């Protein structure tokens, strides 16, 4: 113990340098963790979190009783996680291989620059772009193909629309990581395969894909940790937060955001948040444990 204190005193400069982040994390991240006790309280804004009376697990009973909302937002959250992860990973890999195989490197570079741009546009701006394409009267889709579809009041269209927007937003960017793996493949492998008479497809199947598998596995596992969280802007902004569409577009994060603005249903929301955080924690520990078994160097901790 004494030597520990001595060591700390000797490194006091490091303590000082670590202090700002320590404090910011404490006030911004750690204190709100304690705020999760709201889930077990009958929250009243005027009494504050600590002053509000305890109510045991009433909020959770309420949660299970009002099945519709809770089940629907959880279902949507999971559904979009699965769709985005499956489609996203597949396209990331395909795009990375395509760009890697393309021999006109300068053209590929310019294309890649353009493909990454959407990730830097906020959803607050994206929603206007989406509107320009799918609005009923002025949208390009309805005008070009004369479909007259009321996208903004037809919930069943939105899983498709949001998936397309998500692909547009993130695939170009997501493929960068896989490209860096491809750049590391020893070219001699390809040359040897060529001499053995393997054509391009066989090379991709037997050399390129296997070398991507570890990275794909790690990214998939790590993403499991975020299973309960969504890209809030996509669901809140792009759908224009339209109540008609909630049945297919409302996820946990956007539900909580709405509850805050409407200043209502705090017990329910707190219980949902608690559920979200705990499941998130369990999934994160699970994901990291798996990565640790498969590729320890990529584990987070």
């Amino acid at each position, binding site marked *: 113990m004494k030597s520990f204190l001595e*060591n700390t005193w000797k*490194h006091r*400069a*490091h303590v000082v340098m*670590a202090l*700002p982040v320590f404090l*910011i994390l404490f*006030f*911004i991240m*750690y*204190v*709100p*963790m304690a705020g*999760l006790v*709201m889930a077990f309280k009958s929250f009243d804004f005027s009494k504050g979190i600590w002053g509000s009376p305890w109510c045991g697990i009433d909020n959770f009973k309420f949660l299970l009783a009002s099945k519709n909302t809770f089940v629907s937002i959880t279902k949507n959250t999971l559904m979009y996680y699965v769709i985005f992860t499956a489609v996203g990973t597949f396209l990331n890999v395909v795009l990375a291989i*395509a*760009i890697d195989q393309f*021999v*006109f490197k300068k*053209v590929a570079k310019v*294309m890649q620059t*353009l*493909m*990454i*741009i*959407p990730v*830097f*546009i*906020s*959803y*607050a*701006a994206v929603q*206007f772009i989406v509107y*320009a*394409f799918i609005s009923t009267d002025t*949208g*390009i889709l309805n005008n070009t193909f004369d479909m007259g579809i009321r996208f903004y009041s037809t919930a069943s269209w939105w899983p498709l629309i949001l998936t397309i927007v998500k692909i*547009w937003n993130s695939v170009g960017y997501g493929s*960068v*990581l896989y490209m*860096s793996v491809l750049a590391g493949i020893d070219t001699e492998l*390809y*040359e040897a395969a060529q001499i053995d008479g393997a*054509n*391009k497809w066989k090379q991709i199947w037997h050399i390129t894909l296997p070398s991507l598998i570890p990275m794909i596995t790690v990214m998939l596992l790590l993403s499991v*940790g975020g299973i309960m969280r969504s890209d*809030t*802007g996509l669901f809140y902004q792009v759908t224009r937060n339209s109540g008609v569409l909630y049945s297919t577009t409302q996820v946990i994060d956007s539900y909580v*955001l709405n*509850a*805050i603005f409407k200043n209502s249903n705090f017990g329910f*929301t*707190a219980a949902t*948040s608690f559920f979200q*955080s705990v499941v*998130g*924690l369990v999934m*994160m520990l699970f994901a990291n444990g798996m990565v640790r078994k498969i590729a320890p160097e*990529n584990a987070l*901790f």
Partner: protein
Amino acid sequence: MSKRKGNAADLAPSKKEKKGLGQYILGFFLLLYTLFCALPVVLVFIAAFSDEKSITQNGFSFFPDKWSMAGINSVLRYGSQLLTSYGITIFVTVFGTALGLLVMSMFAYSISRKEFRLSKFLSIYLLIPMLFNGGQLSGYVIFTSYYGLKDSLWLLILPLCVSTMNVIILRTYIANSIPNELMEAAKIDGAGEYRTFFQITLPLLKPSLAAVGFMMATAYWNDWQNALLYITSDNKKPLQLLLVNIQKSIEFLLNNSNVPASARAAMGGNIPQYSSTMATVLVVIGPIMVVYPFFQKYFVKGLTVGSVKG
């Protein structure tokens, strides 16, 4: 696919020789995907300079009947509010990024010192927020009613300032790419800890600071959520909140057909129109489009570093 000919050309890099039909087909598909990504952004430009009438009559189009500067002009008519919002966004972005980079690199440097025994604890302390967090509701209640920071710019800055992932990227870079001997040597030459950090480590950290910095800056620039949650007064509104408000007021006009004509007229130039809305979008996303190509190589590198944790 050309067959290998077994002559001297074999020694040349193998990629050079295959510009066959397959490449052009591949190129065609890549071009399609590039257009899919780029055209929506192009549409923003076109719509911003389209004549309002051609949009209301024929809808948005890549080939408007008539061009017009009216959209851009009406954005400029927001005048002081646009300038204020620009000022707020730029301030939050620059100050937040600079502050974040400074404190995170100091922290990363500290926990990368092997002889520093507290660093184990600090690493775990850093990691926990990534695993578990209080969620939006509890954050909202605590920031507003306990810290009393409602309508304060600090709530635009601090929540995005420190992220576990970014600290890990910086720490990895320090551990893998900056030789420890350099820092040892500086100490032997009599430089103190702070001087070693600021004069040796920080300058060598530049590539990863650029990568992390660019990511942070876009996150600040694009943050609408914290602004929507916390900012209420006009003189603290960042650009993204301006966009959100435009959408809200369109909705209000659409949903309230009983707003009297005189009131609409009184709002005059403030009734958001298609072209001026797109012009606003253009003004908001423009700076990132301009800056991004210069940082591309850094953040590609930064992403890669982040994925291979040391």
